[in-house]
């Protein structure tokens, strides 16, 4: 906020306040002064009246009553009036009158009256002259005068000449003719004019003095308070704008409130500077830590990618990981070994964060090395356990499940080191021993278990992030929901996707605190693994077997003689080849009627031969008595055709479309 924009000013307010105080003080002082002066005028009037009474009393008593008050024309009376007028002028009275009270009629009987001015004097000479009666009601002050010789208090009244104040005194008449009342009237207005002059002469210097004091005070206020406050205020603005206050401007010290504010301000800026430094340091540390975490995360993603897929002729495997933190403690891996087998691994390292990730990286590398070089699951884990547990100061451990699918024997060999057993999908329950986690104890003695796994069957490996995913009702996803979610899966990718989708739908918007890691392996299915009507047989390869196959095909195809002939043709050609060249001793046949075709799978244990790799066409006609047409016929007749060498078997799957 700029100074110019400020509308209020402490100084202005103080000046206004001072002006009000000044006016009130002036008015109050004037009033008090007036009151004092009017009282002084009254006292002066009283003294004057006594003086008038003394002079007049002497004058009157020089004569007999009748000499003076016998006639207005008499010289003594004239002298009396002259004397009265002199006195009137002398004491600045407006009227001076002498009168008696007629008790019988309660009227005033005037003896003599004079006024200060001639025209008024002529008037009162007539109206209040000798013997004039005025029957206005008598006042208490008049009785008091008669009784006590004087009026005790000033008597204020108004007549046609304005406000008056009067003093009364008793005056003895000569010859014992009773007591008269002397009434001396003074003009209030005149008194006021005198008083006014006096008041001004007193009030103006007073007000001037106060004004000077106020101005001095304002100047002091400005220098002692306003300017220091403005300095502090401008320091604060500078600090707010620049974040610093430059050099310390404190010079003269009074140890007053302003200095206290300034000190507090400097203390505050100092504190704020310290806080800012701390915050900057903390921010730098944070950024550094998150950068290191980012590096750790990238290294870990190299070891454990977000997803990994592997597909061979005989099986398919898929894994995925979603970490709840920058770095996770879960591990999965899928490894293709040189002998054609496929490894699938899942592991969960104790603890979370960077330490778990480092431990996991070490373990993952060791495990990969062992598995890739041909070790069995149990052998690999036992060896790694021996390495880790001898030097494991943090007492970290890892639960692991390792499985290896061997296509040569269609077997799955696995071992479990304290991990949650995998789900068997599409097949029977898999018996899994609990085992002991790797890292803590010596000689954990894990052993391998081998089972047979059929096409379309698979296993789903998971960490507790899957089963312990929670929804908004704080319920766990659980193994049952997981089993249900993947029940229909026929490939590893499908199983992981189904599980992930079901978990995501279950948790909704709830934030998850655990990594979600899934890995799966499925034995591949071909066309013959589908279908509802299926025939399977294990036969000795011989041409005579064709009649059996023809019967099976006929029973599966019904009236579709066209398809039957085509299906028998491909069996005819394949069987001829197997019998003639492969030296096989066993033949496994699977014939399945699918929705729109008939699928025939022939697996023989003869020498490896991929008929589909053959590229040459049908030989010259002249040479056809030596054969060479069979494979061409199969290729031309089948709507779908595949060959794989599955272990020691040639597996040829042929599909003939129904018409």
């Amino acid at each position, binding site marked *: 906020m700029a100074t110019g924009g400020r509308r209020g000013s402490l100084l202005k307010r103080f000046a206004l306040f001072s002006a009000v105080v000044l006016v009130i003080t002036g008015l109050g002082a004037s009033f008090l002064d007036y009151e004092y002066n009017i009282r002084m005028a009254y006292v002066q009037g009283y003294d004057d009246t006594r003086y008038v009474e003394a002079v007049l009393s002497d004058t009157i008593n020089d004569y007999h009553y009748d000499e003076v008050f016998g006639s207005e024309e008499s010289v003594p009376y004239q002298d009396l009036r002259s004397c009265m007028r002199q006195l009137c002028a002398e004491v600045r009275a407006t009227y001076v009158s002498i009168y008696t009270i007629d008790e019988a009629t309660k009227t005033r009987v005037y003896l003599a009256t004079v006024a200060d001015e001639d025209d008024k004097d002529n008037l009162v000479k007539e109206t209040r002259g000798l013997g004039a009666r005025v029957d206005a009601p008598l006042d208490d002050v008049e009785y008091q005068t008669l009784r006590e010789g004087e009026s005790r208090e000033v008597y204020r009244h108004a007549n046609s000449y304005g406000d008056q104040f009067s003093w009364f005194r008793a005056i003895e008449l000569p010859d014992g003719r009773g007591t008269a009342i002397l009434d001396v009237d003074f003009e209030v207005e005149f008194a006021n004019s005198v008083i006014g002059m006096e008041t001004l002469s007193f009030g103006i210097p007073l007000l001037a003095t106060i004004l000077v004091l106020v101005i001095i005070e304002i100047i002091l206020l400005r220098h002692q308070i306003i300017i220091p406050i403005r300095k502090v205020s401008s320091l604060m603005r500078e600090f707010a704008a620049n974040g610093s206050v430059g050099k310390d401007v404190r010079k003269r010290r009074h140890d007053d409130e302003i200095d206290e504010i300034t000190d507090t301000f400097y203390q505050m800026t100092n504190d704020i500077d310290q806080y800012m430094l701390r915050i900057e340091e903390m921010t730098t540390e944070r950024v550094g830590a998150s950068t290191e975490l980012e590096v750790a995360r990238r290294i870990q993603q190299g070891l454990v990618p977000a997803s990994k897929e592997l597909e061979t002729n005989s099986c398919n495997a898929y894994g995925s990981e979603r970490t709840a933190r920058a770095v996770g403690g879960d591990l999965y891996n899928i490894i293709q070994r040189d002998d054609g087998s496929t490894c699938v691994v899942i592991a969960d390292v104790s603890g979370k964060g960077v330490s778990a990730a480092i431990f996991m990286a070490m373990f993952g590398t060791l495990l990969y090395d062992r598995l890739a070089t041909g070790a069995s699951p149990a052998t690999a884990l036992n060896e790694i356990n021996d390495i880790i547990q001898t030097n494991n100061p943090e007492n970290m451990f890892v639960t692991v499940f390792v499985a290896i699918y061997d296509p040569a024997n269609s077997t799955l060999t696995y071992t479990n080191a304290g991990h949650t057993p995998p789900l068997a999908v599409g097949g029977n329950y898999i018996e899994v021993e609990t085992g002991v986690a790797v890292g803590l104890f010596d000689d954990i003695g894990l052993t391998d278990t081998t089972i047979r796994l059929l096409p379309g069957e698979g296993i789903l490996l998971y960490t507790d992030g899957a089963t312990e995913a929670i929804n908004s009702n704080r319920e766990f996803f659980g193994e049952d929901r997981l089993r249900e979610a993947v029940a229909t899966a026929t490939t590893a990718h499908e199983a992981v996707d189904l599980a992930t989708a079901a978990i995501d739908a279950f948790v909704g918007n709830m934030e998850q605190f655990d990594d979600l890691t899934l890995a799966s392996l499925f034995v591949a299915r071909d066309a013959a693994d589908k279908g509802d009507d299926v025939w399977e047989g294990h036969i000795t390869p011989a041409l005579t077997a064709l*009649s059996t196959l023809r019967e099976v095909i006929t029973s599966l195809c019904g009236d579709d003689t*066209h398809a039957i002939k085509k299906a*028998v043709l491909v069996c005819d*050609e394949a069987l001829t080849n197997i019998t003639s060249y492969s030296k096989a001793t066993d033949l496994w046949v699977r014939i399945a009627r699918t929705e729109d075709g008939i699928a025939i799978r022939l697996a023989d244990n003869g020498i490896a031969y991929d008929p589909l790799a053959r590229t040459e066409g049908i030989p010259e006609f002249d040479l056809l*008595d030596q054969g060479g047409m*069979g494979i*061409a016929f199969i290729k031309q*007749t089948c709507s779908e055709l595949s060959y794989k060498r599955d272990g020691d078997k040639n597996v040829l799957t042929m599909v003939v479309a129904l018409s």
Partner: protein
Amino acid sequence: MEIKPSTEGSVTTLALEGWLDTTSATELADAIDNIDDTCTELILDFAALEYISSSGLRQVVSAWKKMGGNLRVINVKPDVLQVFHMAGFDQRLNIS
């Protein structure tokens, strides 16, 4: 499969009936071996033949060679003709 041979002058006719597959191909081979030297033309009547595979075709080629090309295949049904077609026989043999 049944094979009915008949001879009219120097023309021999083999009428085949049923399925000529890899097991029955030897029967045809035997029948062709039995044709004597006086025969100047061989007719294979496939009117009743339902099926043929490459084993059967090999015997047809053998017969064609033995007869020096004097071979006719008659009354071929569509399914069997399709197999002939796959091997390209319809371009080299006298088929009707």
